[in-house]
């Protein structure tokens, strides 16, 4: 058993940098500090910059009625987190934060939505101005394409990237699709360890 574990560890050590290179990511030389924002999480509790401080976070922006991109991104992030849990101790695992930018449709279902992917996921939303404030800090973009008051099936154009926020509450990197779980986990593992020459 010990030999098997050693071989697995050795394999990960050798293969991880190579796999991580498959990930499309941009690491910021100077992390971009997020400003204050006042949002609410899926449990109805306030969620502010303080909730991003003290741990790594992966923040993805989307909307709950997105049938295609958002579910697969969140499912992949759950798989990334699962893979990463084999590489880092629990206290260093990043929290997954879903910034729901369509509050009228998102707020009523946000708790069920994030729990659908993983109970540890955090969904946040709030007033449009506060959503825009955080999105701006993340260098993300979104636009609700509601054509009329009775249009209830509108699309939301939004950034595809996931922001990697460091424990100081600053954006350290952005990763873009595909979010291949193993490669992305290796990429994040190296990033969390400060090995930034991975692009």
């Amino acid at each position, binding site marked *: 058993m010990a030999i098997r574990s050693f071989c697995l560890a050795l394999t990960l050590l050798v293969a991880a940098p190579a796999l991580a290179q498959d990930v499309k990511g941009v690491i910021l030389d100077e992390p971009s500090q997020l400003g204050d924002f006042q949002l609410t999480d899926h449990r109805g509790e306030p969620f502010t910059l303080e909730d991003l401080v003290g741990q790594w976070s992966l923040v993805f922006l989307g909307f*709950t*009625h*997105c*049938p*295609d*991109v958002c*579910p*697969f*991104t*969140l*499912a*992949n*992030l*759950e*798989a*990334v987190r*699962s893979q990463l849990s084999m590489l880092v101790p629990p206290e260093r695992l990043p929290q997954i934060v879903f910034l729901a930018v369509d509050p009228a449709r998102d707020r*009523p*279902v946000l708790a*069920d*939505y994030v729990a*659908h992917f993983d109970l540890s996921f955090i969904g946040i939303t709030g007033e449009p101005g506060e959503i825009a404030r955080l999105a701006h800090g993340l260098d993300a*973009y979104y636009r609700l394409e509601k054509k009329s008051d009775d249009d*209830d*099936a509108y*699309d939301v*154009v*939004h*950034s*595809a*990237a996931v922001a990697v926020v460091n424990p100081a509450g600053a954006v350290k990197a952005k990763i*873009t*699709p*595909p*979010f*291949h*779980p193993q490669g992305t986990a290796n990429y994040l593992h190296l990033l969390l360890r400060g090995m930034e020459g991975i692009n």
Partner: protein
Amino acid sequence: MKLPFWTILMAALTASAMPLRPAAAHDHGAHPASVAAPVKVRQAWSPRGVPGVDTRAVYFELVNGGTAPLVIIGAESPGFRRGVIHETTTASGLTRMTPVEQLTVPPGQSASFRPQELHLMLTGAGPEHQENKTLPVRLLFADGTSLSFEALVHEADGQHENHRHRAAMPKS
């Protein structure tokens, strides 16, 4: 809930092999005639719905084994208000869905509806669809015919190798 691999495989094989059922198998109001047998749907599935969210995506491969072009103009599913063909694109870091008014599948070719690319989007679902193990779908064609099939419902699991790789190829 994850369906066993063999269940999914058998369902996929069955869908691709069995003769097309007449459109009247599902009560959607007017019933266009069903299409000729060379047109097949394979590997139809839909990610399990999220409580409270009334949109669903359906993925499949449509094979036109006939001798004439096949023009899809829409789709419907009982209990949903609308079915629209959408194409997801990711360009300049932004992802968006664009409605596809009609889609032509040339004879001898197929169209792949798959995650983060072409998909059928159903909207206006009732609560009964959250727990269904299959979704009945009917594709509508420009020549007045239609094709009915059942899409298996299971997780949009990031650890499903095929789905992950398909999800990994947004058009840009």
